[in-house]
């Protein structure tokens, strides 16, 4: 089993590893750290296939490392479907893969993928006789599904904390932090909910913020947010409209049921992998996942790494990987200019221009990638790489606003954006949206839109001449 590589964690890294612990993985004792997610420790130990897909039993592995996909699910301490990218290593933990037969590593039912041709169409299957149908249903459930029922003791009911608040802000990234800060500065009480363990969102992306220095500054700013009730590791789960908005959120030990007069949604985007053949092969990550893995958790899953993308942030990630002495297979981009590209060339990173990725190849993990010229379907270049970072078009996390009936609009370029007016107000008067879900395209723009929405939200709660002036001067500037 090829190991991942642990690199030295740079100073100022908000993702310190913590203390060494040992846990059990399918009968082996593996090492991890108590501030490190299981998925990261497993990749460092060389575990590559985390599970198998439902229908074709294709290998699956972590993709997003931000708790959005389903690639990292495993059975932990007798409970199925635990997101290992969000679960810290604990000493004595028992971790197993939950899909595949006899195991996720060697799954005989991969034959379904290899033998079923272009499509396995379940619409016309099992319709002949009801007896056969029932047997087929039983077999299919055994083969696919999401793990066996828990063997752990039943969970005790989680206490529910019910209270009201002037405003709830969902998401503690650049937009959410400045919205919450602004609102509380205007004298309103604010509950800030963050799904991840750390506040910061994109501010925590090591490479895309010009390295650790900028992170340190931001960290101070994040820490300076006072007088706000902040709950981390507490994803918002639902928003119900009404006279007052009902916001439901939950963490391991508590469920929150908050009646809020106003809501500011700053949930950012989901990272996706673009569409090309075998885009689901383990070893293919989005830029922010790779950033978190290498720059945050200091684990290089496999090398060499190929980086594919156009955005400055993606190119800067490639540069950061090079600085951290990660072996690069090169950078594929259609960009021809820009500081980020120049700096890559200066670092002697090989650039493959005018090409795009058409196919990934490998058995259980990425082996190589085929590229084609922009104008052609035919691949004309094969690159060896064991990890690939690919950027995809944006996918804003619009759902919570949509729950409450806010209008959402689609464009191929931006994905689903929550519709807002100049002040960040959605079509539901009590709900505001800021940051990437409302169309910001950078951390700075997100922070600004958060402030604007915070001011407008504060004004809608209580008229105040000073706040009004601040908002007006922001609108002009």
């Amino acid at each position, binding site marked *: 089993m090829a190991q991942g590589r642990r690199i030295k964690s740079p100073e100022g890294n908000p993702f310190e590893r913590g203390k060494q612990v040992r846990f059990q993985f399918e009968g082996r004792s593996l090492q991890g750290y108590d501030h490190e997610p299981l998925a990261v420790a497993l990749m460092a130990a060389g575990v590559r296939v985390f599970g198998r897909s439902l229908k074709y039993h294709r290998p699956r592995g972590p993709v997003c490392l931000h708790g959005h996909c389903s690639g990292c699910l495993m059975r932990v301490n007798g409970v199925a479907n635990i997101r290992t990218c969000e679960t810290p290593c604990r000493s004595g933990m028992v971790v197993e893969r939950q899909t595949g037969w006899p195991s996720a590593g060697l799954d005989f039912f991969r034959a379904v993928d290899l033998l079923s041709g272009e499509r396995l169409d379940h619409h016309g299957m099992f319709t002949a006789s009801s007896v056969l149908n029932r047997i087929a249903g039983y077999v299919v459930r055994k083969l696919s599904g999401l793990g066996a029922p828990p063997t752990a003791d039943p969970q005790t*009911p989680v206490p529910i904390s019910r209270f009201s608040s002037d405003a709830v802000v969902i998401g503690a990234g650049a937009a959410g932090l400045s919205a919450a800060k602004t609102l509380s500065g205007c004298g309103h009480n604010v509950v800030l909910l963050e799904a991840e363990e750390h506040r910061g969102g994109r501010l925590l992306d090591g490479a895309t913020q010009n390295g650790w220095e900028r992170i340190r500054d931001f960290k101070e700013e994040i820490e300076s947010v006072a007088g706000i009730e902040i709950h981390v590791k507490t994803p918002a789960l639902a928003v119900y409209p009404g006279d007052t908005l009902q916001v439901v959120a939950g963490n391991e030990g508590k469920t929150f049921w908050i009646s809020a007069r106003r809501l500011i949604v700053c949930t950012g985007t989901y990272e996706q992998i673009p569409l090309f053949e075998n885009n689901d092969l383990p070893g293919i990550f989005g830029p922010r996942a790779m950033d978190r893995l290498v720059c945050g958790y200091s684990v290089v899953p496999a090398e060499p790494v190929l980086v594919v993308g156009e955005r400055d942030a993606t190119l800067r990630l490639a540069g950061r990987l090079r600085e951290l002495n990660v072996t690069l297979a090169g950078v594929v981009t259609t960009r021809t200019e820009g500081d980020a590209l120049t700096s890559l060339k200066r670092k002697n990173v090989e650039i493959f221009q005018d090409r795009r990725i058409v196919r990934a190849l490998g058995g259980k993990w990425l082996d190589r990638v085929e590229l084609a010229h922009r104008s052609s379907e035919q691949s004309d270049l094969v690159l060896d790489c064991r990890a690939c970072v690919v950027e995809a078009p*944006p996918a804003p996390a619009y759902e919570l606003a949509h729950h409450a009936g806010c209008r959402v609009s*689609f464009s191929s370029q931006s*994905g689903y954006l929550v519709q807002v007016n100049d002040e960040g107000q959605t079509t539901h008067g009590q709900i505001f949206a800021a940051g990437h879900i409302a169309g910001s395209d950078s951390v700075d723009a997100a922070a600004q839109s958060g402030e604007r929405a915070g001011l407008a939200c504060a004004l809608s709660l209580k008229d105040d001449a000073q706040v009004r002036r601040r908002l007006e001067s922001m609108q002009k500037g």
Partner: protein
Amino acid sequence: MGRTIVCRCEDVTVEDLNQAFSEGYRDLESLKRYTGFSTGFCQGKCCTAHAARFLSALKGGDDTVADPIRTRPLLHPTPASHFARAVELLDEESK
């Protein structure tokens, strides 16, 4: 077998979407119901935008066809133990 996966939770491929489209499922909600994309563990976070872009491209770049699918709580799969107390709580409040 080479496949381009749109929805990795439910193994829905580009071919599946093409097939559904040619069978007449030409809005996002019907496409979803027919192919099952966005109905898996991640609840559509990794595939809905892909499917919307795909549909818009098939319709010659018409973005208006991709009205969002109905989103429903909860946003993430959550153990039932998180809500077991809610009934008790409401009972107490109504007393």
